[in-house]
């Protein structure tokens, strides 16, 4: 016989919702009971490995519990055992859709520890690559949203764009995904010859393609509107209360963007708008993403037009040994505010590194707003949050 505690635990693991355990014979006036369903971790729409324990009344979700941790790779602990520069490849693997911002946050934190002076050209290239990274993440997110709504084609259009940006990244950084490009004190290498022109051509092309290939095809579709308007609706107060950042926050009307309000690096010199929407539903989040892609295009053009000359790497010595203290790097990743807290004890490895990924925080949304929606509405709400498995589990 299992103890009562053990029984509850094992039943919870086998997908029984706790409400049923407290009172196993709950039936409504028709003698019907709810259906428990375990969605994931192996599920095509779960953005990686997420498990949802659902309690369904017909198609309506009564309860939605999120179970995270299936992709936990102890990033923070590993970071403590590596020298400062060797942590950068680890941060790459946190949010694998927007790696460059993950590197940027960590490097900013360490540079704050070191009080280092970064060459302006390195700062500009960082911002440039970061904005490319945002486009590379936002456009597939829109594709994934459509995929989850049942339209298969947009994701392939989206990946065409991602592929072309990856080609640029490959030329600049030498890697297609795990770049290891932003280094402490600058960037790995200067832009190769001809690459600024290639970037310019690509951005011009994307500007032309964005309207016909994405906006017209998606917004012009009545089914898309019917499936997303009013779905996952939340108020601005709720969003702020839950600590959301990024697109889920901005689509409720709150104007918060780390790039604007706590500017870092080259963003001080750039002219751009913070895109917000008032609706706070899935459709609004889609509009914010498209708007942000347009802003990124605008920023990339500004950077390319006015790229400073000079070194791309500051001389910080061969071994990085920051003085005791702590440094925080805050960046706006494609999913929200990403902050890294590095504590140094004076040795050449960090004493403690904490990654505040937006996905972990934004994920609270599921428990809060999914109940009351229909089962198929979970997928567009996932598209609203657009989490990445690697980033919420770390």
């Amino acid at each position, binding site marked *: 016989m299992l103890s009562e505690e053990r029984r509850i635990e094992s039943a919870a693991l086998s997908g029984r919702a706790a409400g049923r355990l407290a009172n196993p014979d709950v039936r409504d006036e028709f003698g019907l009971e709810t259906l428990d*369903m375990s969605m994931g971790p192996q599920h095509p729409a779960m953005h990686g490995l997420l498990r949802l324990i659902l309690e369904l009344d017909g198609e309506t979700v009564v309860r939605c519990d999120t179970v995270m941790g299936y992709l936990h790779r102890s990033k923070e602990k590993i970071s403590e055992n590596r020298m400062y520069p060797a942590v950068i490849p680890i941060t790459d693997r946190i949010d694998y859709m927007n790696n460059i911002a993950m590197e940027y946050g960590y490097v900013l934190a360490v540079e704050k520890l070191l009080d280092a002076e970064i060459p302006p050209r390195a700062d500009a290239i960082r911002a440039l690559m970061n904005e490319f990274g945002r486009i590379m993440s936002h456009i597939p997110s829109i594709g994934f949203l459509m995929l989850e709504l*049942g339209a298969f*084609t947009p994701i392939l259009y989206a990946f065409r764009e991602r592929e072309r940006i990856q080609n640029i990244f490959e030329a600049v950084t030498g890697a297609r995904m795990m770049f290891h490009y932003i280094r402490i004190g600058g960037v790995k290498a200067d832009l190769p010859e001809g690459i600024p022109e290639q970037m310019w051509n690509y951005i011009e092309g994307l500007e032309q393609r964005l309207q016909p290939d994405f906006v017209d095809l998606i917004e012009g579709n009545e089914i898309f509107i019917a499936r997303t308007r009013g779905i996952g609706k939340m108020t601005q107060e709720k969003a702020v209360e839950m600590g959301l950042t990024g697109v889920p926050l901005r689509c409720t009307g709150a104007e918060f963007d780390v790039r604007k309000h706590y500017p870092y690096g080259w963003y001080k010199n750039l002219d751009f708008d913070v895109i917000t929407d008032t609706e706070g539903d899935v459709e609004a989040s889609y509009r914010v993403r498209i708007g942000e892609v347009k802003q990124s295009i605008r920023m990339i053009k500004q950077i390319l037009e006015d790229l400073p000359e000079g070194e791309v790497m500051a001389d910080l010595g061969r071994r990085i040994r920051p003085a005791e203290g702590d440094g925080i790097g805050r960046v706006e990743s494609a999913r929200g505010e990403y902050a890294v807290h590095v504590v140094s004890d004076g040795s050449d490895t960090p004493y403690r590194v904490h990654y505040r990924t937006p996905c972990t925080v934004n994920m609270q949304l599921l428990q809060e707003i999914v109940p009351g929606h229909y089962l*198929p509405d979970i997928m567009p709400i996932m598209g609203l949050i657009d989490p990445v498995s690697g980033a919420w589990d770390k």
Partner: protein
Amino acid sequence: MVWTVVEYLNYEPWRFLVSFAAVLFLVLNIAGIFTMAERKASAYIQLRYGPNRVGPRGLLQPAADVLKLFSKENLSPNRADLWIFLAAPIAMFIPAAAVWLVMPFAPGAVIVDLNIAILFFVAITSIGALGVIMAGYGSRSAFSLLGALRGAAQMISYEVPLILSLLGVIMLAGSLSLVDVVNAQSGGFWHWYFLPLLPMFVVFYVAGLAEVKRVPFDLPEGESEIVGGYMVEYSGMTWAMIQASEFAMMGLMAAMNVTLFLGGWQPPLDFLDLGAFNWIWFGLKTALLTFTFQWIRWSVPRLRMDQLMDLGWKILVPACLVWLFVVAGAMLVLQGS
């Protein structure tokens, strides 16, 4: 007594067997051809090449697929109701194949000229819903069960507008026999029923899409939410049977649409009459409609269950009813004068 081949084939038991084999051959090939067409169409819509390795231009891909599926193990869930689980693909496949028996392919080329062929079509296709419920119930999985319930609700609801749209054709043709319906549409494309019955043609098309569970009505499958729905537990040949029946149903709906509203094997203009080769027209029209199914499949997202029901009961059914009165009134006036 020396029998010629024709006499031999006209001997009733043989005729039955041969026509059964012919239909089976046709249905399985249609499934193969449509799989290939679907892959190629989707590939070109999605900026890909599609299968292009097996055989010339990848044309033997369906054969390779079947070979692979044959070699796969038939898995069944531990607690599945095995009889229901294994019978479900058959219950889906038989109705999809059987309706082809009454389909007029060309002048005189119909296996059974039933005088109630339209009723036969309605009756047999509704058995398909049974197969879906069996598959979902037999698999003992929450995902399958949800898919099956969605499938049952959807297929039963959409049968109503489907049948209502058939009434217009029956009224105009004055017959339930498909051969009579096709014959009544002779003499150029302006005699086809899709013109006087345009709303019903649209309703039949949409309801047909829902009946064969294609996007935007593929809720019973819903691969991004209930990961394949009622067929999530199937593998190997049982899965292939379900797929084959889905594709056969798709071809059947297109062919039925052609027969009822687009003149069947009738050529669009009289001088294009090919005589016994009029099946080419039938095939062309069916292929065209099937392509539009695939076009829709790869272009639009999926509806939600409540939106699906709204569309069926609040738009399609009233549209059909209204047009039924319009057609009846017009017939009364025109025949009275």
